């Protein structure tokens, strides 16, 4: 595996993670997952419902080769509920990965940093690989690294808004100051957003709505794959420095006016 992304000792060949919500059908979701070549997808927990047994994604997802499931804690209003959700998710996924998300306000779905921090401490202590969804706050990111989170996942913009990297300047600081992988989660709309995140030095992106709500989800998933690969390659290649003044890229010798 060239240039693997290592999280908690697990190596991933793809830097694109997918959410599995909001797809028109399970088949559409599975096609998008395949087209993305992702190796990590998020899933949510919901009460078992006899009438809607077809919503159970365990079967379709477990048939996908080389795709790890990362349960999220969506629905948790506080640290206590998130810890319980993480334990239930681990029962099913048989994996230590958890996307810790606590966003009690349905109007903006922004993460509660205090509850998230408290839950992260306990989950890391219990041996989970904790990937917290957080506001793009460099101080919080560092504190979460210090308590043992395996990565941090700052938001680009509010969940499902497609506003892109509205938090770009803060994310750059998080990348510079944090030693665990930085994964932009939420807000991305286009493959160029994903490329930008990787160019900034983010380790990966987690995308759901931008693919699920695209006219052709599988095609968009493939486009995101390309965007992520381009952004990562650009980061490794080293972007040129910016300049306040123009710097000619062609010779400015004045042969055209030499005979005037």
């Amino acid at each position, binding site marked *: 595996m060239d240039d693997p992304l290592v999280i908690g000792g697990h190596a991933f060949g793809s830097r694109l993670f997918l*959410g599995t919500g*909001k*797809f028109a059908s399970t088949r559409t979701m599975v096609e998008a997952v395949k087209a993305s070549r992702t190796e990590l997808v*998020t*899933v*949510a927990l919901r009460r078992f419902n006899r009438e809607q047994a077809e919503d159970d*994604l365990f079967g379709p997802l477990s048939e996908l080769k080389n795709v790890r499931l990362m349960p999220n804690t969506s629905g948790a209003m506080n640290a206590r509920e998130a810890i319980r959700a993480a334990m239930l998710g681990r029962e099913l996924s048989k994996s230590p990965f958890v996307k810790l998300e606590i966003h009690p306000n349905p109007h903006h779905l922004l993460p509660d940093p205090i509850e998230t921090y408290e839950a992260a401490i306990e989950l890391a202590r219990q041996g989970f690989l904790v990937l917290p969804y957080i506001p793009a706050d460099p101080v919080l990111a560092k504190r979460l690294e210090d308590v043992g989170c395996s990565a941090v996942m700052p938001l680009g913009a509010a969940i499902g808004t497609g506003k892109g990297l509205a938090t770009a300047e803060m994310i750059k600081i998080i990348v510079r100051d944090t030693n665990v992988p930085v994964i932009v989660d*939420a807000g991305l709309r286009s493959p160029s957003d994903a490329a930008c995140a990787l160019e900034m030095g983010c380790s990966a992106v987690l995308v759901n709505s931008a693919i699920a709500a695209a006219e052709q989800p599988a095609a968009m998933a493939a486009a995101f794959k390309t965007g992520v690969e381009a952004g990562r390659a650009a980061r490794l290649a080293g972007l040129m420095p910016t300049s306040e003044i123009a710097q000619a890229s062609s010779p400015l010798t004045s042969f055209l006016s030499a005979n005037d």
Partner: protein
Amino acid sequence: MQLTVNGEAHEHAGSGTLDALLDELGANKAHAAAMVNGDVVPSTEWAAINLREGDVVELLVFVGGG
């Protein structure tokens, strides 16, 4: 035995283990996680857990999520 399952009253007619409850509900046991009175119960213990009158059981499955 009267239980509360996923927030609704449920009259359980089986042997009273968590395993029996899942069978009764027709749940795919390989795809479900369970909690009794707020405590997560690993699937390895489902056959041994004897539910009691009034227990609050939550059964969860994976669905799409971001």
